[in-house]
């Protein structure tokens, strides 16, 4: 946690999908039970790096996500730790029944890694962008849902995911991610990380929006508004204690995510806060729409997911 007067400087680190590829490859040495199941996209998800070192433990089953998830379930039932990875949009949407009945219902130890989440993937457009994956993953009873905000937390998240007993959904993005956490940081599943303190409002963020929240913190400070910033790498189980403290200490919570309004971090925060310690709530998210093709920068600007958008929403929230 940094002092609230230190300005946040955007310093690009590895994309979270790249950090995942490296972390998984490295873990493959110490954990022989890890097996990767791919659906023709390993050069995008970076599981190919694991596959190059451990070819016998890498199964590309082609463009067939439903079978891919079923195969992972069978591997888990026979004692392996399968990591099944593809674009989050295809993996969660195409194979949802399989995730539900072959993995979640029997609570099998399958690690589901969805890359290219959010609109920041850019020009490929909506068919490749997962904008509802938190909602879908959180609707699978027994799943743990993790979204690391940067390279360091991704390394830690991969280790935590493999060590965890039970199904996990790990959400990763395509572009380089600004550095937030120290290299070598650990990540505890279910814990929020306070990056800044303040008493006027709390900005709860995840993924790429955490960096936007840190930039917004500095802009808000210049306006005399002091924001606490919480990074939530775990969507489920939710760190309710951190939210209760935020509500009690700051009275306003703004939730920022690269996801639809429905069913994401904002939804689960609202439910938790409403149940335990109601306060004023605001949201920065995609709303109820698909995006389009464009550069990542143009898309984040057009669809309201930049630091200035967070600032604007924060100003409105504390004025209520």
């Amino acid at each position, binding site marked *: 946690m940094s002092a609230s007067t230190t300005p946040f400087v955007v310093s690009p680190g590895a994309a979270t999908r790249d950090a995942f590829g490296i972390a998984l490859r490295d873990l493959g040495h110490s954990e022989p039970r890890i097996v990767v199941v791919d659906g023709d996209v390993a050069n995008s998800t970076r599981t190919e790096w694991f596959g190059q070192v451990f070819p016998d433990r890498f199964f590309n089953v082609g463009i067939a996500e439903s079978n891919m998830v079923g195969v992972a379930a069978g591997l888990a039932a*026979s004692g392996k730790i*399968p990591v099944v990875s593809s674009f989050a949009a295809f993996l969660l949407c195409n194979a949802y029944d399989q995730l539900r*009945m*072959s993995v979640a219902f029997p609570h099998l130890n399958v690690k589901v890694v969805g890359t290219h989440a959010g609109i920041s993937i850019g020009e490929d457009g909506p068919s490749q962008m997962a904008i509802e994956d938190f909602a879908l993953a959180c609707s699978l009873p027994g799943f743990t849902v993790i979204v690391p905000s940067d390279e360091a937390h991704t390394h830690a998240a991969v280790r935590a995911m493999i060590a965890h007993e039970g199904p996990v959904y790990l959400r990763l993005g395509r572009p380089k991610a600004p550095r937030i956490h120290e290299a070598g940081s650990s990540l505890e599943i279910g814990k929020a990380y306070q990056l800044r303190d303040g008493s006027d409002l709390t900005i709860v963020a995840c993924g790429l929006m955490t960096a936007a929240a840190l930039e917004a913190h500095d802009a808000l400070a210049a306006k005399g508004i002091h924001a606490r910033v919480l990074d939530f790498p775990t969507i489920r189980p939710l760190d309710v204690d951190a939210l209760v403290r935020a509500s009690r200490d700051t009275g306003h919570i703004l939730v920022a995510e690269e996801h639809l309004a429905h069913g994401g971090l904002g939804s689960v925060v609202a439910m938790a806060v409403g149940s335990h310690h109601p306060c004023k709530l605001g949201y920065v998210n995609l709303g109820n729409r698909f995006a389009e093709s464009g550069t990542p920068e143009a898309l984040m600007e057009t669809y309201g997911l930049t630091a200035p958008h967070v600032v604007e929403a924060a100003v409105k929230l504390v004025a209520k």
Partner: protein
Amino acid sequence: MVALYKGGILNLDPSHPSAPDRDRFILSKGHAAPALYAVLAEHGVISHESLDTLRVIGSPLEGHPNMRRLAGVEASTGSLGQGLSIGLGHAFAGRLDGHGYRTYVMCGDGEMQEGQVWEAIMAAAHFNADNLTLIVDHNGAQQSNLLPRVIDYRPLAAKLRAFEWHVEEIDGHDMPAILRAFDSVRAVKGRPQAIVAHTVKGKGVSFVEADWAYHGKPLTASEQVRAFAELRGEPAPH
């Protein structure tokens, strides 16, 4: 299933249903759960008394098989089309671990309409999964109608051969033929095997046989009496 469990095919010790090198049987057509439970009871994996608790709240004998609640159930099936993929995963694990176990998966012929089954069929052939055997209960009927009136994809055996599987086609009520087919497929190397078993739904009970409307419909008490009498070869009661 009787052939697998009681005919000396499945290498499964009822007192060690989770042994790592056991043969696996996955009932992908999970709605036939009562038959699986009956066979598991006969094999000594579950008790005969527990059969009376079928579908009762609190009982592990759910309407469709639940692998977390019942020993001997390898997959939680019921949403059709998923069992063969799961079986392929077991087959991969077996090869990685150097175990010689085989995985048997039973699908319904209506279930073969699910695209995922064919994803698994393609993949199994590509990976030469010769430790994987598919059994298709080809009874020509499904929930809404006879199979040819829904999606007539026959001939099934030819399609499976086109996907590079080894195929045996048998009368699914001829026990010696079933046992021969299992012996035959276990000797096949380099490709997965399918046994297409032509069956009649409700075989042996005259008023149920081939009346597809009996799919999913329990017998009334008096129908049960008649049915058991016929199956035992007794004269019809009045």
